[in-house]
């Protein structure tokens, strides 16, 4: 048995049975990172010392029979958007180079309390703005299935680290698809929970009415274990829900018999690659064969989602990113006067896509345009949410492609922001409506690139969502050639 190739849930079992120690698991993970990450660039930095200390403590707990649960001693890694006390946290931006937060994000604290061994921080599009991880100020991450392609984004480092088996689990964030789209493009499972299910305290903000934290793992069971550890109310995040957190892994094997699964016709139209459609339709047939009641539905306002998203998200981003002013943390430009200091600091610190979105967001909020853009977008957002509410009156979950294409080439969409934005066409609606969504692998195209199947659930019904996702995922998870040492 190669311990580093075990999915998260089996790694936990192997630790519990004594087949492998947390320390051995960590060393296997670090060895893989050293061997493969020079080519992938999933990691921005490792936290080896902290990880060794945590793995040693987990080994001792195991020896004394005081395990903290399924994550105790399991290596995980974090998108570089999560504040971790004393560890550089850049959010993929030059403006935060050298920033070492004075506190842990709530999800980081919860992972530590569950005994997880945090091995490092993962690459991402700067401030989570992008769909390819090419907007990282520290260079792109490469897709483990084809190093000339992107892993998607913005959580491309998280997805790649899990798909290449560098770590069994990782956390990312999803504002418009930034967990689900990269999970699809690298062939792993990635969940965006319901808005409010997981605390965002200590998570660097992009668009606060959309941002949500979620897990990546090879399979749905791993995702369920990670979600159970990070979900729940946090007094430091006013939007976090106090609804109880169920045991998400417990009901996974109940199957889909009798569950109603809606197929929105708007998600299978123009722009969907035929090979992606074929793989997704085959996945839907597997759900039907397993006893799911598959029916066509309509979400008529879906075609407005990308336009709505790029107004709402950029408006909120322009406000959130006002904090990077060179005063309290991060980069400061040399200047003799305050206004000049602000303008030069931000000019030097932000990359092109971040500047573009700050500009768009500032424009749509500026005097004379607010009603025409921002207010109207919020109303269309209400219509998009209403579509889902109506659909969920007759179905338990919705199934669709995660992304219209498989992984695209590095550089392919960098000169055309709108083409890049359209890569999130199927993922953005769940963020606008605050709904949980997951991507699981459902096949490959003729180039051997993974295809993702998306499931969208009712608010706070991650249990049903994960149960269907588990029925839809393959029983065997194929490894990228590079991860097999080829």
């Amino acid at each position, binding site marked *: 048995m190669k311990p580093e190739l075990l999915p998260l849930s089996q790694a936990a079992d192997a630790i519990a049975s004594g087949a492998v120690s947390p320390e051995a698991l960590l060393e296997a993970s670090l060895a893989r990172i050293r061997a493969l990450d020079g080519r992938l660039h999933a990691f921005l930095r490792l936290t080896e010392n902290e990880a060794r200390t945590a793995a040693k403590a987990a080994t001792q707990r195991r020896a004394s029979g005081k395990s903290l649960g399924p994550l105790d001693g399991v290596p995980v890694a974090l998108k570089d958007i999560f504040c971790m006390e004393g560890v550089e946290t850049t959010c993929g931006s030059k403006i935060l180079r050298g920033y070492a937060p004075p506190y842990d994000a709530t999800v980081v604290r919860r992972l530590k309390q569950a005994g997880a061994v945090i091995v490092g921080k993962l690459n991402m599009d700067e401030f989570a703005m992008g769909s390819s991880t090419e907007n990282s100020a520290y260079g792109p991450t490469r897709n483990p299935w084809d190093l000339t392609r992107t892993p998607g984004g913005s959580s491309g480092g998280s997805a790649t680290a899990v798909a290449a088996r560098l770590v069994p689990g990782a956390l990312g964030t999803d504002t418009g698809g930034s967990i689900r789209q990269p999970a699809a493009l690298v062939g792993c499972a990635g969940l965006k929970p319901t808005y*409010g299910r997981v605390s965002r305290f200590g998570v660097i903000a992009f668009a606060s009415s959309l941002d949500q934290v979620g897990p990546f793992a090879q399979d749905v069971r791993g995702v369920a274990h990670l979600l159970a550890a990070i979900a729940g109310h946090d007094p430091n995040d006013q939007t976090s829900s106090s609804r109880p957190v169920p045991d998400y892994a417990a009901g996974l094997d109940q199957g889909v018999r009798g569950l109603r699964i809606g197929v929105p016709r708007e998600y299978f139209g123009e722009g969907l690659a035929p090979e992606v459609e074929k793989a997704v339709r085959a996945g839907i047939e597997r759900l039907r064969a397993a006893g799911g009641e598959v029916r066509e539905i309509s979400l008529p306002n879906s075609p407005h989602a990308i336009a709505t998203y790029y107004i709402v998200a950029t408006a909120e981003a322009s406000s959130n990113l006002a904090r990077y002013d060179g005063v309290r943390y*991060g980069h400061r430009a040399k200047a003799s006067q*305050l206004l000049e200091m602000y303008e*030069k600091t931000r000019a030097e610190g932000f990359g092109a896509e971040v500047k573009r979105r700050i500009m*768009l967001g500032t424009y749509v909020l500026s005097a004379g345009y607010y009603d025409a853009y921002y207010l*109207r977008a*919020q109303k269309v*957002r209400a219509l998009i949410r209403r579509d889902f509410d109506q659909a969920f009156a007759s179905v338990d979950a919705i199934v669709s492609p995660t992304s219209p294409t498989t992984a695209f080439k590095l550089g392919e969409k960098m000169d055309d922001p709108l083409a890049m934005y359209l890569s999130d066409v199927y993922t953005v609606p769940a963020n606008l409506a605050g*709904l949980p969504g997951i991507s699981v692998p459902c096949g490959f195209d003729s180039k051997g690139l993974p295809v993702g199947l998306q499931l969208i659930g009712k*608010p706070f019904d991650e249990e049903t969502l994960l149960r269907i996702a588990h029925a839809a995922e393959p029983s065997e998870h194929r490894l990228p050639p590079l991860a097999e040492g080829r």
Partner: protein
Amino acid sequence: MAIDRAQVRHVARLARLALSEEEEERFAAQLGHVLEYVERLQAVDVAGVEPLSFAGDAAAGLSLREDEPLPCLPRDKVLAQAPEHNGEAFLVPRILE
């Protein structure tokens, strides 16, 4: 919808972003392209629709807690992250001429 260099400069000033001439030109074109795309929302019938700004757990947004003083981060740890400080406060360049 076209957007010209003067508008780009105005918005950049509002956003406290110094742009190069080359950036002004590029952003004018790219923002125009995106604004043209989002124009489609003008055709959606939103009469009588209430804007949606919060799509989470309604109970979460409404819950209140007692206003109790709690410990905050130690000042030295926070100031240690600042580009410039004097041990008590953040320092910035001159504000008034």
